[in-house]
């Protein structure tokens, strides 16, 4: 490994590094050639082999780096104390440490080269099998460096404009800069051989699969259409816009400072791909499996890339701190130092059973700060179907951790869109559980009111009454269920609702909704409970909800109580003991035409 101070290298060895003048690279005085030069670059480098490397996860821990070959293969360790998320690029791992940048052999963790460098930020790095390119921020500003396998800095170029995350292929570095340009730089000559002007933000050049992409929010593929980038005709890949917990961004490649740890827990993952359109004959630009994933601490969410619909959700026992999208799914590494594999289509957990995998399932035995993953060739084995989204959501909702409140609220909103009756059961469970945070219980009850499927689950829940001796210490969300079942005209709910009407455990808010539902659903079998409620509270109702409940029950008595029901309500209307507010409403009720008794 060479570790030469920069100024000495420059002064003593012209062959070790070359500083390009500001008039050369990253010069704004450039005339758009309509993409001709960049197209030539593309044709030349397309013949170059794509740098291959192992499928690998690199964990950053307090004691250094741990690399694990995937799936569940050998591990290596290196003592480098990374300040930035390591970059895995083909056969090389590039690590930014304090005043030093190091490259390791991805398969073994052994050192390839190391340079001493006074820099503040490692923006990005890449390797093509022979040369590594680095984009850094230092006191001098942005700089691009190229380092060979001997550790010699063969190119060094400062830039007045900020440089983005570079890529390298076949001895050509692709460097985004100025937020709109990508320069192709021949690393041997140090000259710019082509440039593209993107009509969108571009700060990253990254290899995903077999292709290069340039972009920031949307990514332009480096293909035959790239020459039309300045006119907006390049092939672009962009994830749909939708609100997702933590607002993760899709930022493939690059690195990030490990001080901002929360960003490792909130990320988006996707692999651009072409898929066959519904018609079958055409191909369209999309993402592998038409899925992208986002992570939020210990939860991974899978979405459809066209519709943005939530397709699956998985929760893990520790936070997700890195990952990658592959052709068939997603690889995530956790804070515990495990690697998890999920099928892209439905989030099925994949069991890559092998003794070494079992070993890797036990984690590293120390906490992981971050993780970088390369999984270009990883093959997923055949597997069975995953559980339904509702089942997966139930599992995720069962994890009670204050950090996950946002994703739990999100999942409830998504469950509201599911027709599956099981979604109703899950909402009931969340709304009933004393372990659920109050705000989440409230949201679940609100969503439940709007449900129109799963009536059997609703009835089963309503059957449950508080019973101290049977250890039934919570009540179902009676009000929400009453409203939903009323909307479904589900008369089988009436006897259960009537019992809850007279249960002291039923809250005032639920009482009003229950009474309102009974106004519609009650039959003669509920008369006794209706009469009890009416007599207990027609003179003692002390708040608006109870007043309204009494009046709803009066309406029910008039509907199904026959002559006796009318007599009870009439007497109450005339009785001085009846609460004045109730008396007034009963008077108005009796003044209207009586509803026809239901048979």
């Amino acid at each position, binding site marked *: 490994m060479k570790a030469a101070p920069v100024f000495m290298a420059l002064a003593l060895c012209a062959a070790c590094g070359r500083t390009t003048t500001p008039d050369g690279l990253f010069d704004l005085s450039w005339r758009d050639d309509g993409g001709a030069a960049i197209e030539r670059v593309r044709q030349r480098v397309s013949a170059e082999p794509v740098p291959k490397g192992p499928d690998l996860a690199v964990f950053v821990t307090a004691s250094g780096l741990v690399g694990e070959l995937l799936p569940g293969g050998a591990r290596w360790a290196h003592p480098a104390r990374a300040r930035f998320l390591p970059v895995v690029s083909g056969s090389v791992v590039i690590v930014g440490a304090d005043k030093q940048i190091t490259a390791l052999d991805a398969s073994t963790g052994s050192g390839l080269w190391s340079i001493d460098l006074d820099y503040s930020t490692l923006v990005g790095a890449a390797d093509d099998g022979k040369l590594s390119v680095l984009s850094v921020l230092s006191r001098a500003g942005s700089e691009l460096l190229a380092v060979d396998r001997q550790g010699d800095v063969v190119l060094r170029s400062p830039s007045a404009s900020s440089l983005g995350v570079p890529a390298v292929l076949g001895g050509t570095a692709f460097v985004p800069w100025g937020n709109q340009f990508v320069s192709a730089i021949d690393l041997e000559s140090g000259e710019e051989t082509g440039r593209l002007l993107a009509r969108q933000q571009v700060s990253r050049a990254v290899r995903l699969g077999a292709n290069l992409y340039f972009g920031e929010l949307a990514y332009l593929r480096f293909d035959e259409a790239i020459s039309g980038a300045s006119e907006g005709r390049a092939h672009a890949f962009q994830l749909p816009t939708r609100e997702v917990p933590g607002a993760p961004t899709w930022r493939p490649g690059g690195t990030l400072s490990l001080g901002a740890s929360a960003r490792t827990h909130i990320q988006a993952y996707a692999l651009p791909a072409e898929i066959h359109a519904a018609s079958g004959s055409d191909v369209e630009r999309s993402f592998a499996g038409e899925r992208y994933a986002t992570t939020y601490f210990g939860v991974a969410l899978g979405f459809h890339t066209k519709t943005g619909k939530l397709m699956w959700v998985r929760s893990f026992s520790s936070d997700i701190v890195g990952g990658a999208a592959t052709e068939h799914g997603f690889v995530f590494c956790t804070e515990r130092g495990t690697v998890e594999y999920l099928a892209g289509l439905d989030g099925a957990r994949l069991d890559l059973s092998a003794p070494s995998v079992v070993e890797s399932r036990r984690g590293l035995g120390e906490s992981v700060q971050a993780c970088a993953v390369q999984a270009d060739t990883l093959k997923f084995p055949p597997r069975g179907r995953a559980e339904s989204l509702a089942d997966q959501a139930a599992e995720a909702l069962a994890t009670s951790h204050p950090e996950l409140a946002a994703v739990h609220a999100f999942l409830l909103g998504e469950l509201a869109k599911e027709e599956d009756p099981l979604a109703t059961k899950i909402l009931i469970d969340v709304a009933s559980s004393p372990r659920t945070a109050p705000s989440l219980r409230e949201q679940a009850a609100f969503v439940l009111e709007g449900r129109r499927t799963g009536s059997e689950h609703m009835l089963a829940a309503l059957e449950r009454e*508080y*019973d*101290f*001796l*049977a250890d039934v*210490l919570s009540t179902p969300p009676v009000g929400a269920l009453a409203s939903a079942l009323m909307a479904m005209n589900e008369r089988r709910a009436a006897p259960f609702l009537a019992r809850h009407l*007279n*249960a*002291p*455990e039923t809250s005032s808010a639920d009482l009003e909704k229950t009474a309102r539902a009974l106004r519609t659903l009650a039959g003669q079998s509920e008369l006794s409970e209706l009469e*009890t409620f*009416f*007599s*207990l*509270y*027609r*003179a*003692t109702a002390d708040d608006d909800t109870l007043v309204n409940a009494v009046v709803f029950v009066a309406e029910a008595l008039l509907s199904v109580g026959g002559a006796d029901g009318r007599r009870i309500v009439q*007497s109450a209307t*005339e*009785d*001085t*003991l009846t609460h004045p507010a109730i008396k007034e409403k009963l008077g108005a009720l009796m003044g209207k035409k009586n509803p026809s008794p239901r048979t």
Partner: protein
Amino acid sequence: MFSLRHSRLALAILLASARAGAADAPKAPQAPKAAGAPKLDVARLSLDLRSGDSGRIERALEEIGRAGPEGVALAQPLSELLVRGASVEIVRKAISVAGGIGASELSPALAQYVRHRAPEVRQLAVRALVATGGPSAVEALRRALRGSDPALRELAATGLGGLGARQALPDLVAALDHRVFAAARSIGQLCAGEACERFLGRLGKLPLEVVTDGLEPMLFRPESDVPTALKLEIIDRVSLLGTEPAQGWLKGVLRTWPAAGDPKVKKALEKATDTGATEEAPPRGKPGAGEAR
């Protein structure tokens, strides 16, 4: 935690307040009535209770409350008032008066108030039902034992023993398992055979004062209910604990032992507390064996 001492006090208050009627009303005179005391004007009071006028109703309730059990003649209109419902003040008085009358025909009307949303109304209703009794009372108290109101559970547990509700024994055992300690005394009042022996098995597993609260009524029950052999075993096992509280309890039982009580039990108590026994009674089944400790 609900203290056993409080539980015994609660039972005393429960029964006293139920028999005495409304809390503010003077205690009901005991039968037989003194000659010349004004009789209740049943017809007038019935009209008052049915009047719908809060003033008339309250005055009528006060008058009936003063009569105590003599008010049974007004059970029907009082029951109607309770079924019809009224203001909280009237309902509270009506429930107390019903408890003071203590007639079982009032129980169905009282039972619905055990489910009232106001805790104090529920508790008044339970107290009254202990006095009125009957199947409706037992059912209402059994339901209260399962409810979410801890104070009501304790009152109901105590009351079921007072009602002699043997059919509630499984609920009371379950309640004791759920640390409704007031159930212990009722179990002691109601158990028979194996159920009593199983209760004795809780000695050493529950606080002593909880278990002895149930063992005490067992000792005083007739032999047809609780055999002497079991009573002797109770004394023996408590004695074997060898603690001061255990000894204190045994002495307390001995002090209140009735003159006409089972002499064998008395002798066992004396022996266990080393008081008054001048000759050693042979241990059960083993003549000549030494004193067990």
